[in-house]
């Protein structure tokens, strides 16, 4: 569950080991977040995936 109109946060993932990627993300407010992955495979194909991160608490 996410609210429209709220500021998205962007981050580029870097390969830390073969097949393993890492990206710093700063959840800027509490609530339910959705992480969208925009992935470009080695053969040029594009893949999109999303994961819900529910119940992020406010600082």
């Amino acid at each position, binding site marked *: 569950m*996410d*609210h429209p109109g709220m500021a*998205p946060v962007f981050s580029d993932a870097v390969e830390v080991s073969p097949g393993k990627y890492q990206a710093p993300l700063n959840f800027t407010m509490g609530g339910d977040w959705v992480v969208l992955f925009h992935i470009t495979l080695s053969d040029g194909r594009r893949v999109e995936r999303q994961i819900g991160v529910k119940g992020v608490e406010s600082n």
Partner: protein
Amino acid sequence: MTGTTPPLSPATEQDRLGEEEEFLEAQPFDLLTVPVIGPLLRWRHSRTFLQIPLFAVSIVMIVEGLLGPTLSPKNLATVLTWVHFRGALVLAILCAGNLFCLSCPFMLARNFMRKWIHPRFTWPRRLRNKWIPIALFVALLFSYELFGLWASPWLTAWIIVGYFAAVLIIDGLFTHATFCKYVCPIGQFNFIASTTSPLEVAVRDHEVCDGCGTKDCIRGRRETSSPLVVLQRGCELALFQPAKVGNMDCTFCLDCVHACPHDNVGILSRLPGAELMSDPQRSGIGRFSRRNDIAALAIVFCFGSLMNAFGMVSPVYTVEDWLKRSLHLQSQAAVLGILFTAVIVVEPALLLGLAAWITRAWAGVRSGWLAIGIRYAYALSPLGFGMWLAHYGYHFFTGLYTIVPVTQNAFAEIGWPILGDPHWTLVGLPKTVVEPLEFGFLLLGLAGSLLVAWRLAQDDSEKYPVRAFVPWGALCVVLFLCCVWLMTQPMDMRATMGAG
């Protein structure tokens, strides 16, 4: 050559001020005299002209909501409904008047239907009040929290579809503007909010009305040879212009403007909230002090604004968890039901009851405490409107530009990317700009509520106006502080995040 104006004697100064006041009262600003806007609004098809774009947008929202992206921030239905529509609506009411009802897309569908289907029934007398739309308004606020409507394009689309269906069924069966006056929860929100608007549809010169024999503003005009053929509608909400007071129940449809054969109805400026400061007999409404239902609407409008904002900040989860543990509840609906009952029913009953009791006991106001509570409930409307403005204005301004990437995405999704790749980094105005606006709206609301309460207190107790005012002034300040507290809480909102 220079010169100075000789000082006026107190009497002359008073006369001059009096003349200025009379001049201002006699010469209010009239939106219909403004170039371009005036002629556009006077045009007989102006409402249809304004409704068509909103109707088209509604259809796009339904299609996008049902078939578009499931992620709310990427869908036109949710972005337009919960960010832009709500914000634009309250800002229009603040700056002008009830412009959404004027351009209501649901009424376009209804008017089209009524070319072929003529309603036969009249709305039952016992339902001619605001209790049904109040219940629907609370149900909408409740559903918003329970089902997370902001996060569901699909549910948002079905709400719009449901609205169209309800309008067509009710106004297909019942005569006049039954849906607007007795059912529509958005309409009631607009009506009570627009009591604080700077503009109202009103008679320009009452002497002209005194000499009017046709009363077209309420009767409308029909074909002489065929009385069933309506040439021009009169007011479908039973507001007779010469006796109309303020914006309550006025949809700004401008039927009265078009119907008046003397061109004597304008969109005139007035002191915002002025209609709340007195209790005259109002056409189509009666006296506010005798309308428990409209007073309840004002209360729900004010306390509903607090509840709606409370549902979006961190402390709500603490309260919900506490309720679940204390009462051994599993159901989220039950927890929300308790919260809604506490904030929208119990809290106002206690606070208004206490204020009314003090007013009666301390200021010597003769009315019963219930009558006093009803009378002063209207004073809460400006503060409630300030809170709605602060809340919806926040989402509107901080998400203002999100319509751009969402529209780009909608075109891309249908395989026609004429607007280019979505610019998801476009969001809105920074919080540092928006937050002062929020508090400005709240202060404006507080000032309006205090002014209304003071004017009512002056009328109620010539001997002790301050005593009559203090309980209500204190109540307004307490509610204002609650609003400020809410707006300063960490938001527990829902957002989207992209990682690429």
